[in-house]
């Protein structure tokens, strides 16, 4: 009971997160099935740091789900050790162990005859929490996943949409505040638009709860998007590479990893860099939109640029003008030239910025800060240089460049 009390206490996991010891340590973990020559999981050794999302990714049948289920011992290992939070749990009571580990599967597996509230209360009830505490926790979790407790607590799973069920599945896994969560392709069976939204929500949620999450997927893009660390698994769950997404994309350890990432590695890498992280072109010619055309022309001529950006009083980009536009402006700049497009926030990814640039006809993105004030320009050249600097293999760079233009 003391162990479960400890993890259930608020802030317990955060306090422990300061120590360097990994939350999960797998040592030479092996699973062989009778009648099969080769083990399904062969001597996997891994450290999973606290508070991180560790993604196990690999082709179908590589044993990634098996590896995950060895951790909560839904599958008993043939040999090897499992350490959870410094404690050897290889032979611990499996039911007690599982109550300390949140578990989410692709099909969710909500209990159809339980209400949403009762579903979420499952593990707290097993742990013997009192009614009031369970009730509070259910409301808190529904709020956390963005569903109104007054509306949803009494509903049954069949009355929910796919996305809502997924959220309840996550809330149920979080119920007893376990330090570790196992998630087996939780967004696999959801339409792409909802999946994207749930992934973003999931990342926001993780910012708040800071769990150690083992996430299984076969989708490398999902792995790159969600993972703090990615383990690319080959057959028999052998680790081909275990590293941060950036390192895996820029320095694939083998041709297997390279093949698995696919040809768009550079493009994928753009998902990891933020606009604010690259050197922007800050030398753009700018003028106030409430100024005169003459002033604007002087600025444009002295800058040596072909076009000038008009900003409003708060420094927000308004219109692009060139010399001929200024000639025709008749003093009022508010209707001169063309309205700006391709505005991107400093917090946006390079991939997003590139997309905006391609869809706007300016060929350049206007980078603004949180309040919309102009920060600088981002052009194709800068994106390409960034891509090149993170990509050793130049052939990949050209492949990526080709992909951009079509």
């Amino acid at each position, binding site marked *: 009971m003391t162990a479960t009390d400890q993890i259930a206490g608020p802030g317990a996991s955060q306090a422990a997160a300061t120590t360097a010891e990994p939350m999960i340590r797998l040592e030479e973990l092996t699973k062989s099935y009778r009648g099969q020559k080769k083990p399904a999981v062969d001597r996997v050794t891994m450290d999973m740091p606290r508070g991180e999302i560790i993604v196990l990714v690999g082709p179908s049948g590589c044993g990634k789900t098996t590896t995950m289920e060895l951790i*909560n011992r*839904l599958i008993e290992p043939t040999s090897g050790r499992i350490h959870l939070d410094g404690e050897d749990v290889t032979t611990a009571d*499996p*039911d*007690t*162990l*599982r*109550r300390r580990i949140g*578990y989410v*599967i692709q*099909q*969710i*597996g*909500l*209990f*159809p*005859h*339980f*209400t949403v509230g009762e579903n979420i209360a*499952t*593990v707290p009830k*097993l742990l013997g929490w009192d009614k009031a505490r369970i009730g509070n926790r259910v409301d808190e979790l529904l709020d956390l996943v963005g569903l109104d407790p007054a509306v949803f607590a009494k509903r*049954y*799973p*069949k009355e929910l949409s796919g996305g809502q069920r997924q959220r309840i599945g996550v809330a*149920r*896994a979080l119920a007893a505040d376990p330090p570790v969560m*196992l998630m087996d392709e939780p967004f696999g069976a959801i339409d792409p638009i909802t999946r994207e939204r749930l992934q973003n929500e999931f990342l926001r949620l993780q910012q708040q709860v800071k769990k150690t999450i083992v996430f299984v997927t076969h989708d490398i893009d999902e792995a790159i998007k969600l993972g703090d660390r990615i383990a690319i698994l080959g057959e028999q769950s052998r680790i081909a590479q275990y590293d941060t997404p950036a390192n895996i994309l820029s320095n694939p350890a083998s041709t297997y990893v390279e093949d698995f990432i696919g040809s768009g590695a550079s493009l994928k890498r753009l998902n990891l860099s933020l606009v604010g992280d690259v050197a922007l072109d800050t030398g753009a010619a700018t003028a106030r939109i409430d100024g005169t055309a003459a002033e604007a022309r002087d600025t444009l001529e002295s800058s040596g640029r072909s076009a000038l950006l008009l900003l409003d009083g708060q420094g927000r980009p308004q219109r692009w003008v060139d010399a001929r536009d200024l000639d025709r402006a008749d003093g009022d700049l508010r209707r001169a030239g063309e309205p700006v497009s391709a505005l991107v926030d400093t917090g946006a990814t390079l991939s997003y910025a590139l997309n905006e640039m391609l869809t706007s006809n300016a060929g350049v993105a206007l980078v603004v800060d949180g309040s919309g004030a102009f920060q600088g320009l981002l052009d194709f050249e800068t994106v390409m240089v960034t891509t090149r600097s993170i990509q050793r293999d130049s052939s990949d760079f050209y492949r990526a460049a080709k992909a951009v233009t079509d």
Partner: protein
Amino acid sequence: MDFYKHLNDNAEYLFSDAVDHVMVVAISIGIALVLGCALGVLAHRSPRVRPMILAVTSTMLTIPSLALFAIFIPLLGLGTPPAVTALVLYALLPIVRNTVVGLGTVDQNVLRAARGMGMGPWRRFARIELPLAWPVVLTGVRVSTQVVVGIAAIAALVNGPGLGNEIFRGLRSLGSPFALNFVLGGTLAIVVVALLFDTVFILLRRLTTARGIR
């Protein structure tokens, strides 16, 4: 009308026989439910014994009821014990089969989730598997009851209780003016008992099925 007068005159006997009939059916179904569920769970869990259990229970249904009642006389004598034993055997197949089907339709992912959250095997069975399989199991019990209400009439042959006694009284006195009335009265009462049981099952189904799966 003659038959109406017969019912009036024999209301007391008919009623007490009907109560006996209900009792013997209820007891048999109760035993068959416990036994059938146990066998059903066993058959569901172990694919190796499943065909055996299903074969044996379905063979029971093919034995002529007259013979099945008589078989137990040397062992159990006359009266209620052989009647209940035979009725239990008849009731088993629908219950066993529906238990197997019901448990088979429970979503494996729901059970996987339950296991992954640390629910032990007993709790999983009592809180998840059984409640989810229950509507199908109950349908099996309802079918068994309908079968058994009819067959219970034969129990009168081995001196068992119930409405069969009315029918056999009539059959024994064939040729007398009242013979047909006894047979009709008994049969009619059995139909009424069967309808009563069915009503009870409709209510039971509503009351014992969780709202989320109704």
